[in-house]
């Protein structure tokens, strides 16, 4: 366990008091400390949104990119230097709305990165429009008569798309969330952790009370995270009881392992250019 103060950032978070993002920040720091990954050995890539500002609020290598594109940035960063631990932290709008296609393809690729989704079921930073995970019928500034789309089920889709680690955390259960992040980072491959995160300003439905009443830990049931069908079924459980924990896990070669170029160490550390001999051989193909 490293000293938590190592991760202390210089900036004060701009989040609303009580926002679930504070807890996610704490969990990320806790997990890294527990995993003994110092700030300079981790990279956190984020998108745009309230939650995506997270890397600014701790000490860590950060890339705060554009809306919806954290996954491909992180995937390539990991290919470039697979010695670093790479995390993606982004909102539900970012990850499932504009970024949905990258989610599908990350599941297929299985890059060794951990994707934390700050799922407040709302667009926070743009002031309260409904998001993909907003329940059908949600009343927001852009859906005064109720949103018309079925709420997006990230866990079911990730399982269907081939994700090798699919979990749900809750900021109200910080210890559990921390342990999920630890496991996600330890997992070799793409780990999706959807995090129930109350937005105290714009989401009046999915509050701490709402979740506190409903949430239960999968670990305390007989759920077998290696059973895809069971995981899929659990992913549709949402109502009186809401499961958190590890839904699905499977072992598969990672994206990085499938590139021969990475076998001899991080790509950024390899000699920059081909040898003269290699280069002349390339030219010889054209003769």
């Amino acid at each position, binding site marked *: 366990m490293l000293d938590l103060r190592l991760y202390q950032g210089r900036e004060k978070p701009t989040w609303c008091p009580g926002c679930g993002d504070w807890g996610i920040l704490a969990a990320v720091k806790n997990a890294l400390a527990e995993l003994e990954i110092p700030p300079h050995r981790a990279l956190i890539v984020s998108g745009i949104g309230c939650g995506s500002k997270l890397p*600014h609020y701790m000490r860590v290598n950060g890339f705060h990119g554009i809306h919806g594109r954290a996954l491909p940035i992180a995937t*390539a960063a990991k290919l470039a230097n697979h010695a670093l631990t790479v995390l993606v932290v982004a909102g539900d709008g970012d990850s499932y709305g504009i970024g949905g296609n990258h989610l599908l393809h990350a599941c297929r690729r299985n890059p060794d990165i951990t994707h934390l989704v700050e799922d407040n079921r709302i667009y926070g930073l743009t002031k309260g429009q409904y998001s993909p995970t907003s329940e059908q019928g949600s009343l927001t500034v852009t859906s005064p008569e109720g949103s018309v789309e079925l709420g997006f089920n990230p866990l079911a889709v990730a399982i269907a798309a081939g994700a090798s680690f699919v979990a749900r955390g809750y900021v109200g259960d910080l210890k559990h969330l921390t342990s999920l992040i630890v496991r996600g980072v330890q997992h070799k491959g793409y780990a999706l952790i959807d995090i129930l995160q109350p937005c105290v300003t714009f989401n009046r439905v999915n509050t701490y009370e709402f979740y506190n009443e409903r949430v239960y830990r999968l670990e305390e049931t007989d759920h077998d995270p290696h059973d895809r069908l069971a995981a899929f079924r659990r992913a549709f459980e949402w109502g009186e009881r809401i499961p958190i924990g590890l839904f699905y896990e499977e072992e598969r070669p990672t994206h990085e392992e499938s590139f021969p170029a990475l076998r001899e160490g991080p790509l950024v550390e390899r000699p920059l250019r*081909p040898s003269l001999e290699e280069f002349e051989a390339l030219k010889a193909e054209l003769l």
Partner: protein
Amino acid sequence: MAEKVINRLSFKIGGEAGQGVESSGAGFAKALARGGLHIFAYQDYMSRIRGGHNFFQIRVAERPIYSHTDEIELLLALTAEAVARHLPELVPGGGIIADAELKLEEAPLADRGVKLFHLPLAKIALEEGGSRVMLNTAALGAAAGITNYKLEHLESVIEDNFKVKGPQIVKANLAVVRAAYEYAQQRYAADFGYELRELPGPRRLVLSGNTAICLGAVAAGCKFLAAYPMTPTTGILEWFAAHAGRLGLVFKQTEDEIAAITMAIGAAHMGLRAMCATSGGGFSLMVEALGLAGMTETPIVIVEGQRPGPSTGLPTKTEQGDLLFVLHASQGEFPRIVLTPGDAEEAFLAGAEAFNLAERYQCPVIILSDHFLGTSLRTVEPDRLDLEKVEIDRGELLTPEKLERLEDYKRFRFTETGISPRAVPGHPKAVYVATGDEHAEDGRITEDPALRRKMVEKRLRKLELARRELPPPVAFGPDPELEETELTFVAWGSTLGPLREAVERLNSQGRRAGLVHFRAVWPFPEGAAEILARARRLIAVEGNYTGQLAGLIRQETGIKVEGLISKYDGLPFSPGYILEKLGELEGVKSGA
């Protein structure tokens, strides 16, 4: 019969998609190059996989050539349509090679003084090789036979190309090529006025713009290509895919172009030299992330191979319609560099230099290519692609040793040049956040107006230096100072080749013509205004409708380009077309 024309020939293969027009053409081009000849070859194909009409045209000469011509001397017709389409291009005395099965009418050919070389190609393929698939091999053999070209070069190419398919296939193809060669040579060579003769000397590379960019990039240390397939740069993807394992590169085919550029950004941020390749449609999808690279000062290289737009347009043809688009793409203002190589050699240099520029100025660099440049082939002296002459300059990239000695690292430090010291993640002394939001020197988000102002100025200041370091436009022609030149063409990108020849022809006709070619368009290179101001009469030659460079020149220098020779029908410029349009501009009907 008049004396034979030696080693001056344009040869065209025409047929349907799926008939192997391109592979045959490329093979023949290589065989010619192996005989020491100079070639220029380009292909024209339709956006379909079978049927339609495609062609491949090879021009041969004893000296370096930069362009195709409109006239051809020898046509290898795989379909009757090929004859119908290309007969008007054949010079009197030219010939057509065709399978006897096509049963072409001789009369219209005879009217034009064109000879028909009917051969039993399919029959030879079947009898000697055992399969009609080898008809192309037979046809190439016939072409070599009719022009009396040394068979062994064609044989060696066939051996190389079919090696992967096993010795049986090689053997069969060799049998076919020989049989057809002999048949054609014996019957027709004497009757055909053009001959191809091996020349002594070193072998030359047969190089396309696409491959040149790959070689340049790899020579400069590019280790990462992320891309989504799109004509005309798919060749770049395929080259990287084919060589990734051997060279220790990563080629990543992505789900779309947004992922391609953001992957390049992710890799470059970590310190790799990273690139993506696309066409205008894919570049359109990259626009948002281009701005992210600008704001985070991440050095990436993008190859944009133009084709006729808007939208899907003519997906397999050529155009130069995207100059102002790539110059202004993405919201807000930030530095970018736009290179516009004119031929395969310049493409190699651009492919290499792009990475130095990207890292030196910590900004995106766009190599603006097009279908014609990317896919046409030219013979190039091997020593023009010299690994040892490719310098690597990583700019203000901090080494671990330098980082060790640092205190209080600031990724976006204000400096006189606007270029800040760059560290890549992984070092304890350089832990920072890069962000697409406006930020302070240390990377934290700011909304402070004064800081914002300074950051805008810092970033854009980099262009001042880049303007001075970019390759200035080059003047071609007998009078590079343009002092005695009465007419100066101004151009960018792939029009270079056809224009060089047009200028040569004009000068040989007694005119005093010159050419100013932009190898880099943005930042508008220092010295360009001066060169242009020296020109007496400027005519822009651009593969677009509006004259985009001409507009830019006026905006940047106030100089009004007098005339515009444009082209936007999907076909590349030829020297003849340029001279014809010049004639029209000058009010004279030109016979060229």
